């Protein structure tokens, strides 16, 4: 019987298109993600095969969550069909039993609900067979991963969702309840994921994830490229345990529903009808009171206000609205709980971050509200069949339409106000009281309301024209999706075409609304005018009465047009004028290049000029700048007198220059002819009148005169703003010689443009002097002298590299003259803002922070860090050659800190808003400043040749330097925490490598290697060699290579210096750390303790050890061990803390396989640990620590 019922249900479903449509959708998305570059599901995959098992697992994980609504639709429909169709009484009066009924329905709907998910595998296989993806990125399609993903992920997840929805559906018996539970499940899941993301016990979190996604990601978090391409999911206790757990939960849920279910029809309960007042004689004969009817504008206004109030109150009191808002607020508050997260630190909940968090998590609910309620409002009279009464009332149609538009706009406004309340509450709860209502208003409420109101106008227009509620919803969503994602395929970026597009806009504490507001406002006005036209057309086609055929609607529209064209005319006029104005400003006064144009230019640049790559060129030696900044007019005048020197042994007959993108340069090359001027690729070739002889100099004058005109499609030169101007020398100078750094790097882009497929990321590491003639920072430029006269508005301070020689005001402008104290890299910045300046002295060096007035809180830390760094670095590495060291704050359009000679610009959105009042955190402000200070030696004194390993000399050394300063300031325990974090980051990033992982010595500007891996490696070397020994090597490096002219030093030079101070017994360590990719797989098996009569302890520790070398893709080969590894013991963590104190540590000789050591300890240990300081990379760091067991 069950089989028959099951088959009946299944057959029923298979006849319906829904199952296939959803399957096709899943197949389409997954297929597209495999086949097409720009379409992505899940994160970046680097060089992992696009159809690798790990990608498949990701797709299945994400699609399982997306399938929530699909499963709900299928299960709900099956479960409540008999109730919805009122056939329940017929069915229940048959001989069918409850068991047969429920089981067959549950099994059938669950089975059917898994079918759409098969689309994932289908699309996956089809996508990998299409011709579009790079063949190198496609691996073999294997059956097993698909089976595993389906059986381990898809099936149990569908069973779980199905059980929950089925239970709700058969017990509540309304579709609404089912979908609400689906949304609650979804949002609850997201919220729980957010809340548990910083829980320490990852195993518990992984077990408790009902969809098993956390278990999968925990099991695969350190997978390398090779492993991602080949491995099946490990069938370990965690994943299997998770699946078993949640299948059990599903069973319990189903059983609960089974027990509570009863065949009696709950909907039979009689709806209480209002009692009739029959005793009073009905229809009194008294005449009705006389009334005055007034028609006209005032009446319409009163009617309008009433309608808006009625509709708005109706929406706000409605269940749907309350549910959606509650869900939205639930998610909003969980997101806001993380608003203070700032890299590895806590940040102050500054208003712009709160606003952007709200936009990120809450706007989706606003879009849901707009979508739903525009349809609901348009159909408000017709859905309950009130339209015949309403439409025969003497009130104009435009009043109806405008009232509805106004209602939805007010709703949007109110939701924004609500979100502001949530934001301010969050700020208050964090004890932050700078509420900035003006920023909330100007950066959130007003722009948000305007933007979403346009969407509402669009939706009203669509609903009116389509005149079918559901097709209307569908059409609106399709249009919005197309408008959001479709234009880039056509390479359209104009704000005049992309609906509701208004260019970039970013609020900054320093620059406020910056240069964005003007263009934003004009484009918004343009789209509002368009919205007005849409509403007018909606009015023309407004459905009033019962004539809905196209013929009559068109006829009515024509008639309405005849009487109302006078309203439309100015509307269209305004729109056309605004469009013309927008075009004039964005395309005539200014220009912009689309991303396709940029890509084409890059490709052509390589094709046309690659042949000049090795053409010998002169080098920059001296620069004298005159710069005039008018920050309030956003204009910039520059003039640079430049000296180029032929450092080669041959005469140079032509000069090759690359011009910057945004600022147009006038270049005066004396006695020369401009033989090539490529204005698309910004490449110029000057033939010199007489060849430049070896040792001879050439003097150029490079000038520019930039002035912001009108407004742009999106503001390009965000470096030039009212308060916080910040630009580099290369924004106003040409670079010399063909620059391989401008070539396309993405493999499929290269293939598309028929460029050679294989491109080395960096030249090979080598000692060959001929290949060491340029630094990795810039071609044809060595140590230069710079002198600058810079002026700005009278209320601002302008800063250029070097010591301030003179400062004066003239003609209402503020002038400064700076000069470098020592030749430096040709890599520096110019800034101007209304700065506050904190000045201190360290010996005879000026230590300064130039900061925005509201951002003083961390300035003392920065100064402290600079001083401590100066102390350490001058003692351990060598002298500092500048007379000042400056930190300069700049607006958050860029979010980095960067070291230039003697100056370190630091973004307002990081160190200046970091909240370091909690003493447990790693002080990233202190650390970042120390790192940038490190660059004053490592990059600005010793700089690597342009080849592999260059960033080992700068980034890794700056990292090491900062670690040392930080350790002095905060102690060793802090370092353990820091290294654990760095180790985790390194291992997680390996699997997303886009080309190949290389050993540290050959690092190719890969952040996860030269920062994260290097921190651990350098600290490890310090631990084994000792700080003084290691720093001796580094001091020698600085001694030998500081301000070295070409040929430049390389990582090999550094390696040799460390090697010199490394005893032979540790050569293996040096090689493991620098020449190999080395990973351990140690595991603490047990730690058994015993208390001795004198209250001391004996502890025996047993662990297994394993060391591997990995290749560029992460394939590992075992290496025999005879290594030194620490064994340590921790005390019990004090309450509220994560870690205990390290009681004891001993370095042991460890061999591959099992190792056992016994220790005598004076105090009771809580945990034993292999490598307690995280000096080595362990594939499973969690199993290196274990509680000590006592008999």
């Amino acid at each position: 019987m069950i089989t028959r019922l099951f088959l009946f249900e299944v057959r029923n479903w298979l006849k319906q298109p829904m199952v296939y449509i959803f399957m096709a959708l899943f197949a389409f998305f997954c297929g597209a993600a495999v086949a097409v570059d720009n379409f992505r599901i899940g994160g970046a995959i680097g060089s992992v095969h696009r159809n690798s098992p790990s990608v498949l697992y990701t797709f299945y994980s994400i699609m399982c969550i997306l399938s929530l609504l699909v499963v709900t639709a299928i299960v709900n429909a099956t479960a409540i069909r008999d109730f919805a169709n009122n056939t329940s009484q017929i069915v229940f009066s048959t001989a069918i039993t409850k068991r047969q009924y429920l089981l067959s329905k549950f099994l059938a709907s669950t089975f059917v609900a898994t079918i759409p998910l098969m689309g994932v595998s289908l699309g996956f296989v089809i996508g990998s067979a299409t011709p579009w993806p790079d063949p190198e990125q496609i691996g073999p399609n294997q059956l097993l991963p698909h089976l595993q993903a389906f059986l381990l992920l898809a099936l149990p997840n569908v069973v779980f969702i199905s059980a929950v929805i089925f239970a709700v559906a058969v017990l509540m018996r309304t579709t609404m309840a089912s979908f609400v539970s689906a949304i609650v499940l979804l949002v609850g899941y997201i919220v729980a994921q957010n809340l548990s993301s910083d829980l320490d016990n990852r195993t518990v979190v992984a077990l408790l994830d009902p969809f098993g996604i956390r278990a999968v990601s925990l099991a695969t978090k350190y997978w390398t490229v090779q492993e991602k391409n080949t491995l099946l999911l490990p069938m370990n206790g965690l994943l299997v345990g998770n699946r078993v757990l949640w299948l059990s939960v599903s069973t319990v849920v189903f059983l609960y529903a089974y027990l509570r279910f009863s065949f009696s029809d709950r909907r039979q309960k009689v709806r209480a009808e209002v009692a009739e007042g029959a005793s009073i004689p009905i229809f009194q004969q008294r005449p009705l009171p006389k009334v005055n009817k007034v028609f006209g504008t005032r009446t319409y206004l009163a009617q309008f206000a009433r309608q808006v109030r009625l509709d708005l109150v109706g929406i706000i009191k409605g269940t749907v609205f309350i549910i959606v808002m509650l869900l939205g607020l639930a998610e909003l508050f969980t997101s806001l709980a993380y608003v203070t997260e700032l890299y590895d630190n806590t940040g102050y909940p500054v208003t712009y971050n709160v606003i952007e968090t709200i936009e990120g998590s809450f706007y989706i609910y606003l879009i849901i509200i707009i979508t739903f309620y525009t349809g609901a409002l348009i159909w408000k009279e017709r859905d309950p069949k009130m339209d015949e009464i309403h439409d025969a009332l003497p009130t104009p149609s435009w009043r109806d339409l405008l009232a509805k538009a106004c209602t939805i706009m007010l709703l949007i406004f109110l939701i924004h106000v609500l979100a502001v309340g949530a934001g301010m509450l969050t700020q208050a709860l964090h004890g932050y009281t700078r509420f900035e209502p003006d920023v909330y208003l100007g950066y959130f409420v007003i722009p948000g309301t305007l933007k979403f109101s346009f969407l509402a106008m669009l939706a009203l227009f669509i609903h009116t024209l389509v005149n079918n509620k559901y097709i209307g919803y569908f059409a609106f969503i399709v249009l919005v999706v197309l408008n959001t994602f479709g234009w880039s395929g056509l390479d359209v970026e104009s704000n005049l075409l992309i609906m509701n597009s208004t260019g970039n806009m970013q609020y900054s504490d320093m620059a406020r609304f910056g240069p964005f507001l003007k263009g934003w406002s004009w484009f918004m006005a343009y789209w509002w005018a368009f919205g007005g036209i849409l509403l007018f057309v909606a009015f023309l086609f407004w459905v009033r009465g019962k004539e809905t055929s196209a013929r009559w609607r068109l006829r009515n529209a024509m008639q309405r047009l005849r009487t109302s064209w006078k309203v439309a005319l100015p509307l269209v006029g305004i729109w056309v004028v605004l469009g013309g104005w927008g075009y004039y400003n964005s395309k005539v006064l200014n220009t912009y290049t689309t991303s396709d144009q940029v890509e084409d230019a890059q490709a052509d640049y390589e094709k046309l000029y690659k042949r000049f790559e090795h053409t010998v060129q002169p080098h920059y030696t001296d620069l004298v700048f005159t710069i005039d900044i008018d920050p309030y007019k956003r204009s910039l005048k520059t003039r640079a007198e430049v000296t180029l020197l032929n450092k080669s042994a041959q005469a140079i007959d032509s000069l090759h220059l690359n011009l910057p993108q945004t600022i147009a340069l006038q270049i005066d090359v004396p006695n020369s002819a401009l033989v090539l001027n490529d204005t698309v690729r910004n490449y110029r070739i000057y033939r010199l009148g007489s060849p430049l002889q070896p040792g001879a100099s050439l003097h150029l004058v490079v000038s520019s005169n930039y002035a912001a005109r009108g407004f742009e499609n999106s503001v390009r030169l965000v470096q030039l703003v009212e308060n916080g101007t910040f630009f580099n020398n290369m924004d106003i100078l040409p670079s010399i010689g063909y620059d391989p750094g401008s070539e396309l790097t993405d493999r499929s882009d290269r293939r598309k443009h028929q460029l050679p497929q294989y491109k080395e990321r960096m030249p090979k590491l080598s000692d060959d002097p001929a290949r060491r003639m340029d630094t990795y920072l810039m071609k044809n430029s060595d140590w230069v002298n710079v002198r600058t006269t810079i002026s700005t508005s009278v209320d601002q301070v302008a800063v250029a590299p070097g010591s301030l020689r003179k400062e004066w005001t003239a003609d209402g402008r503020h002038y400064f003259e700076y000069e470098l104290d020592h030749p430096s890299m040709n890599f520096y910045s110019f800034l101007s803002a209304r700065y506050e300046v904190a000045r201190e002295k360290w010996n005879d060096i000026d230590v300064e922070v130039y900061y925005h007035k509201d951002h003083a809180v961390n300035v003392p830390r920065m100064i402290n860090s600079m001083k401590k760094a100066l102390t350490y670095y001058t003692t351990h590495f060598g002298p500092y050659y500048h007379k000042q060291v400056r930190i300069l704050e700049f607006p958050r359009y860029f979010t980095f800190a960067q070291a230039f000679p003697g100056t370190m610009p630091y973004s307002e959105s990081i160190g200046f808003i970091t909240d370091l009042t909690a003493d447990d955190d790693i002080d990233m402000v202190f650390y970042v400043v120390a790192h940038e200070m490190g660059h004053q030696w490592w990059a600005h004194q010793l700089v690597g040749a342009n080849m592999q390993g260059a960033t080992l000399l700068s980034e890794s050394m700056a990292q090491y330097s900062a670690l040392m300063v930080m350790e002095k300031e905060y102690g060793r325990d802090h370092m353990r925490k820091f290294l654990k974090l760095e180790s985790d980051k390194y291992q997680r990033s390996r699997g997303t490598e886009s080309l190949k992982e290389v050993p540290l010595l050959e690092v190719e500007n890969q952040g996860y290697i030269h920062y994260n891996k290097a921190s651990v490696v350098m600290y490890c070397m310090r631990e084994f060699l000792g700080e003084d020994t290691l720093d001796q090597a580094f001091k020698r490096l600085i001694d030998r290579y500081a301000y070295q002219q070409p040929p430049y030093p390389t990582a090999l030079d550094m390696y040799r210096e460390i090697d010199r101070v490394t005893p032979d017994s540790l050569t293996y360590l040096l090689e493991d750390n620098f020449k190999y990719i080395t990973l351990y797989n140690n595991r603490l098996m047990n730690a058994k303790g015993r208390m001795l009569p004198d209250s001391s302890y004996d502890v025996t520790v047993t662990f297994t050890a394993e060391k591997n070398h990995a290749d560029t893709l992460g394939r590992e080969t075992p290496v025999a061990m005879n290594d030194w590894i620490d064994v340590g013991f921790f005390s019990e963590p004090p309450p509220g803390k994560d870690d205990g104190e390290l009681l004891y540590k001993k370095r042991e000789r460890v061999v591959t396989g099992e190792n056992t050591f016994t220790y005598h300890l004076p105090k009771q240990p809580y945990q034993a640990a292999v490598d307690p300081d995280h000096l080595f990379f362990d594939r499973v760091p969690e199993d290196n620590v274990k509680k000590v067991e006592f008999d």
Partner: protein
Amino acid sequence: MELTIKGLSKTYGNGVKALDNVDLHIPTGMFGLLGPNGAGKSTLMRILATLQEADAGTAMLGDLDVLKEKNEVRKILGYLPQEFGVYPRVSAYQMLDHIALLKGIVNGGERKELVNALLQKVNLYEQRKRRIGGFSGGMKQRFGIAQSLIGDPRLIIVDEPTAGLDPGERNRFYNLLTEIGEHVIVILSTHIVQDVKELCSRMAIINKGRVLYAGPPDDALRSMDGRVWEKAIPKAELERYTTSFQLISSKLVAGRPIIHVMSDQKPEEGFVQAEASLEDVFFGKLYADQQTNTVVA
């Protein structure tokens, strides 16, 4: 004021002729529109209520062109559709007040007085704060009547107003309509002959979009005088009578069919002359109409 309809025609997209050259003259007072389901009554009423468009013809209410000056018509119109609902979660008072405002009664005090009077008139005053969604069919219909009376309408159109009312309510409703119908035009559509007989001074019978009869009910009755014959027959013979006589109606009395046949002479032994009822008029006209159609076809 009079409503004059001339040559009004309406054909739907699917080819159905809802109105076919309808001419009607409707003076002040109650006017009954009689016809079977699908005859075109609702179409006619919706056109008059400005909710549908006519393909051809005119409808003049005094000097007012009903088909063109829709908003002017709406200002003096009271309309009760056959089927209607209201906003969910809105009380009877709120809804009437809202409609009153939309009908141009801007003065809040006047509106309040009017709405209360209306609520009392249709005996919903006690329930004025209840949601209309919870009303019984009769109460909802009373609400519908109340809203159609707002704003002193000169033309009242009520489409099948007694559907869903119990006999008592129907009576009271008629009283109310006649009271109002003394001074304005009230067009009442129904397929219940009884309604028209009791209420209307003038009537029209329409079928398949055409007017079969228009005039006072008395005239119609008079035209049938002496032509209606009645006989009780066995059930088995119904078929024979249907084919051989102008059978206008048959109804069961105590389980036996009693048939009415239209004929100028006594059609057969056993028939007795019956007093013509409006029902006979109605069915007789329909029968005649069908016969002509068949012949033409």
